[in-house]
């Protein structure tokens, strides 16, 4: 690190210590921070999934329900309905869920420009949040961004009700690249009119697999 950088570092830290002494900021322990907000779930399993689906739909996401026995069928339907002949597949995605008759290419095999040309991507999530209609994807940051349609599989047991529950589950992945996705990319920068699909995928399909 250059000398000047060190000088600034020391100066800033010194000023912070002096400022805290001047302002006579009392001690506030981290453990004593009150957390009176809702942390635990209150809904039963059925209501939880209902809420998650409702919130997703409000973001203009397409929601599909499947059983473990017919996930492949569901996938085939979604692709066919959207005129897709295949998609890029995220690392770690269960191959047995992919229907035959489509071109599936691995994430690792695609460079940025191939991803940019791809019609769609299929991924799994780490956890999903019903309260906010969000899915959290670990890694695969370019894959969930460049293709125009993102298909995400959410297993029922991955859905939690609250944001704090999700962060508790994510604790082990805290240092990984995580993306919270809530609906397709959107903007309201022009006259506050919400427009779907600016730079990210214009379409988000979520397949919920009931256990």
């Amino acid at each position, binding site marked *: 690190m250059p000398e000047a950088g060190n000088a600034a570092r020391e100066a800033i830290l010194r*000023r912070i210590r002096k400022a805290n002494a001047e302002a006579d900021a009392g001690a506030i322990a981290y453990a004593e921070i009150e957390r009176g907000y809702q942390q635990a779930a209150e809904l039963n399993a059925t209501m939880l999934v209902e809420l998650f689906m409702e919130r997703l739909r409000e973001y203009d996401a397409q929601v599909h329900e499947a059983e473990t026995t017919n996930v492949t069928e569901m996938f085939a339907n979604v692709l066919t309905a959207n005129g897709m002949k295949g998609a890029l597949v995220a690392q770690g995605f269960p191959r047995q869920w992919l229907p035959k008759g489509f071109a599936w290419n691995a994430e690792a095999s695609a460079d*940025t420009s191939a991803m940019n040309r791809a019609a769609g991507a299929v991924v799994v999530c780490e956890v999903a949040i019903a309260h906010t209609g969000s899915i959290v994807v670990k890694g695969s*940051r370019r894959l969930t961004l460049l293709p125009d349609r993102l298909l995400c599989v959410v297993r029922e047991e991955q859905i939690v009700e609250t944001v704090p529950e999700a962060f508790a589950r994510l604790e082990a992945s805290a240092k990984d690249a995580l993306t919270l996705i809530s609906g397709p990319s959107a903007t309201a*920068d022009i*006259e506050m009119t919400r*427009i779907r699909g600016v730079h990210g995928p214009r379409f988000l399909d979520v397949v919920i697999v009931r256990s």
Partner: protein
Amino acid sequence: MSIRVGNAADAPPFPQAAPALLDDAQLRKNVRHATDVITRKRALVVGEQKDWQALRSSASAIKAHTLRYLDDYLVQFEKACTAAGGRVHWAADADEANRIIVGLVRQYGGREVIKVKTMTSDEIGLNKALEAEGIHPHETDLADMIIQLGKDQPSHIVVPALHKNRQQVREIFMRTMGLKELGDRPEDLTAAARQYLREKFLRVKIGVSGANFLIAETGGVCVVESEGNGRMCLTLPDVLITVAGIEKVIPRFRDLEVFLQLLPRSATGERMNPYNSLWTGVKLGEGPQEFHVVLLDNGRTGILADAEGRQTLHCIRCGACLNTCPVYRQTGGHAYGSIYAGPIGAILTPQLFDMEHAESLPYASSLCGACYEVCPVKINIPEVLIHLRGRAVRERQSDASEEAVAMKTMAQIFADRRSFEAAQRLGRLGQWPFVRDGWIRRLPGMLGNWTAVRDLQPLPKQTFRSWWREREHKREKERRDA
């Protein structure tokens, strides 16, 4: 050290800047529409969040705690980020931050950078510093693009171009993108931006971002956005440079569970914004392989030293106070002369300057308290405004000024019951030439400053104290008589 907050040091005082903006009917219409829509959406999603007040309290407590141990948390962040492959730089002021960033861009041989919306880079004037070195910054947030291409100034923290309507945006895009045809529906304009930027996202090798949160525990960074332009800049380039104010650090990963519930609901009236990106240092084969964080002071430690003012540093830049402010809603953001407009700007800008500039801003408020009520981190903005008005007066005023002498005399009179009551008697006698129909509408001399903007009720015939004394006398007499 030289503090810079955009061009605020050279901006005219608020009372001088506001009238022209108040005459701009189109601007006022645009601002009113945008703030109405966000305010309505916010009210809905805040109303449904049953634990909203508890979340606000926790957020405020986390921020207060973090500021108290800011030195430790910054060092912890630096250590964790460095261990994860990032490089941390410290900048005492705007120029130092710009020097570091320009130096990095040159070191990597970049002639262009793609930028995610960052108010901090506007604060330090980064674009100007890059351009001076022949480096072209591309703003990629739709609103920031409108501002950059239209050579305009941001007027809102979250929606910087809310003062422009669709026709105005269409005109800017057609002119600067060289388009022969373009519709004026927001869909058309958004599609034009997508097409214009996609090639740049794929080509430009250096990204510049701000940060919503720096996580001390993990060394991670969180960026909150909607369009996906942020994710493009954060993941596609080879090099990423993040500039963040030192107050952006939070202690732990789990603290995001509080802020990520408060920020989107407050900022855009959404339960969650479309994209939140979290990353830590460098991951082999995933995202930028060179990552730098520039930690910026630029006046923040000065604010930290002020016991009343330091809560300003809780701010998470949601913009809710702007949308609800009756002053901002009339003038829009440009009247504030700073990239930080509205109530938060009125306390942040002058404090960053240690009250050397922008000292008219604490007066650009009716003190109605709406900003405090909507603030997701409970910054008592009216309290800080009054505190800063006090500072401005104390620092501006010499002891010999007419006002200072008057105030000192008044303080002496008010301190003693007899002289106070004598003054009231004098006032009652002296006021009669000015009373018309039960109101005083014009006073002479220095007192005229008061009546120039508001009418005054005359002193009543009897004060409460004298009424009470009379009443007690009467009772005493009645008791004696009985």
